Each structure stands twice: as structure tokens, then as C-alpha cells.
């Protein structure tokens, strides 16, 4: 592994961690918020249920893996 590869792998693990599904979900939720806001429709309501849902799914996956 080159130093650059090691750096980016370390950066990925630092920010995204071991649950990339959650990171992907956050990106999708923010993109959906941007799309709705761009259509001049109130978009604040997208993030709260998305974040709580992503957290619940992440906890469920981790608990299932560890038990």
C-alpha cells in the first residue's frame, strides 16, 4: 500500500468509521433536502426523521453483529 493509499484509508476510517451505510444515508438525506429546498418547498423536515432513522438502523446493525 502506498503512503497516499494509507492516508486516504486512514481518513476514511477516521470520518466514516465502520458503518458506511450511515454516511451514505446522511449524504442522500442532505441531497434530498437540497432538491426539495431548490423547488422552493420547505425542506427542514427531511433531516430529523432521516437522522433518527439512520441512528436506529446503525445501532441495530452494530448490536446484531456483536451479540
Amino acid at each position, binding site marked *: 500500500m502506498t503512503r497516499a493509499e494509507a492516508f486516504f484509508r486512514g481518513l476514511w476510517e*477516521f*470520518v*466514516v*468509521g465502520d*458503518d458506511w451505510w*450511515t*454516511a451514505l444515508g*446522511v*449524504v442522500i438525506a*442532505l*441531497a434530498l*433536502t*437540497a432538491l*426539495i*429546498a*431548490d423547488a422552493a418547498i*420547505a*425542506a*427542514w423536515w*427531511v*433531516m*430529523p426523521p432521516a*437522522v*433518527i432513522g*439512520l*441512528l*436506529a438502523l*446503525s*445501532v441495530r446493525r*452494530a*448490536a446484531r453483529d*456483536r*451479540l
Partner: protein
Amino acid sequence: MSGAEIGLALSVFLACTVEAVEALTIVLAVGATRSWSSAMSGVGAATVVLAAIVAAFGPALTSLPIDQLRVLVGGLLLIFGLQWLRKAILRSGGVKAKHDELEIFAEEREAARAAGASRPGFDGYTFTIAFKGVLLEGLEVAFIVLTFGANQHRVALAAAAAGLAVLLVAAAGAAARAPLARVPENTMKFAVGVMLSSYGMFWGAEGAGASWPGGDAALLAIIPAILASAVAMAWILRRTLHPAATAEAAGPPAEAAEPARVSA
């Protein structure tokens, strides 16, 4: 100081306290077992590297246009905060081992002894372990200082909150000459996870073009909502794992859980 700035300072202070307590345990173990001067050299070198990271990236981040900054940094902060919160919920739910500074101290001290006799003068082993410990624990704090600080253009305030936490932990460690095992680390990690996730969601959505009802006051609803959801998830985990104990237990979310089942 505005409410958002108090939230910034409090979040950074709590996060930094937790990480500083963990770093202190490592430094104490190698310092007391092998060489204080080499341990302090490692701490100093790591502190310089961390300060350089904040100094280099802080101005670069704050120069971004505000909407791009908020969606980028809000998203990163949210992803990062959800990691902290998930681990805190798993610890509180009894699925993941809680941090036990006394146990970690004993392990580090044993490893330091097993590494052989320390050399007079500069001890490379002690320097490296102290440097790595402080750098790795400090990177998360540097990330939080940069993201929180850049979003509000208050990197200096965030750095000051982090510095205050380090000073307090160092003073407490010097006075106790032992790991700070009584600091409620797990509860503090729970709180930091809630704050990072809440602010990340708030800023991320604003950067993406959404307007929160009530503006900044929306945080007064977002933070309790995230906290309540996280506490509920931890309670459900505990109830699933230990139905009898949950009926009797009542106390702070992250400290009242049953003993851990799985090591971190």
C-alpha cells in the same frame, strides 16, 4: 456569548475532556513506569502537530462560502457525531464495553514493563507511546474544533475551549497522580454524540438550502429530540438484553447500564 457559541464551547470542552482523560491514562502509565521526561517530550511533540493541523486547516475551511461550508462541515459533523452516539448507545445498552481507565492504565503499564528496561536519558518507547496516544486522541478533538469552529467562524473560541479542557485534565491528573477513573466518560461521550449530531444536522440542512422554523431556536427542539431518541434506543437495548435489571434500574443513561458483554 450567543446560544450557538455556548453550544460550540460546551461541545468542544466535553469532547476534549473525554479525549484528554484517555490520553492522560496512557501518558501516566508510560511516564510512571519508564521515563517522565520522554513522556512529556512525546506529549509536547503531539501537541505541536495538533496545533499545526488546526492552524493549517482552520483558515482554509473558514474561507469557503458559508452554504458550501455548512453542507460540507455539517455533513461531516453529522457522520462523525452519529459514530460517537452509536458507540455511546451501545455502551449504555451493555453491548459494548465501557471505557475503564484503571483497566487501561494497568494494561499500558504492563506493556511498558514488558518492553524492557528504559534507557537513561531519552527513552524512545516512552516518547512514541505518549506521542501516539496524545496524537490519536487529539485528532478527534482537532476535527471537532475545526468543524464546529469553522462553521461559526469561531475557531479561536473552539480552540480555547479545548485548551481549557486539557489544562483542567492535566491539573487533575497531576494532583491525583492516577488515572481519572471517576470522570463520567461514558455519559460525557453520550452528550458529545448528541451535540455533534444535532449541530451537524442543523448546519447540514441549512447549507443544503433548508430554513429551520425559528432559526437558531430550532436547536432547542433538535437537541432534546436527538437526546430522547438516543436514550430510548439505549433503554430498548438494555431491556432486550437484561429485562429484569431494566425494571429496577433508573439513572443517567450512559452510566446505569449493566456490565459490558463485549470488549471495545
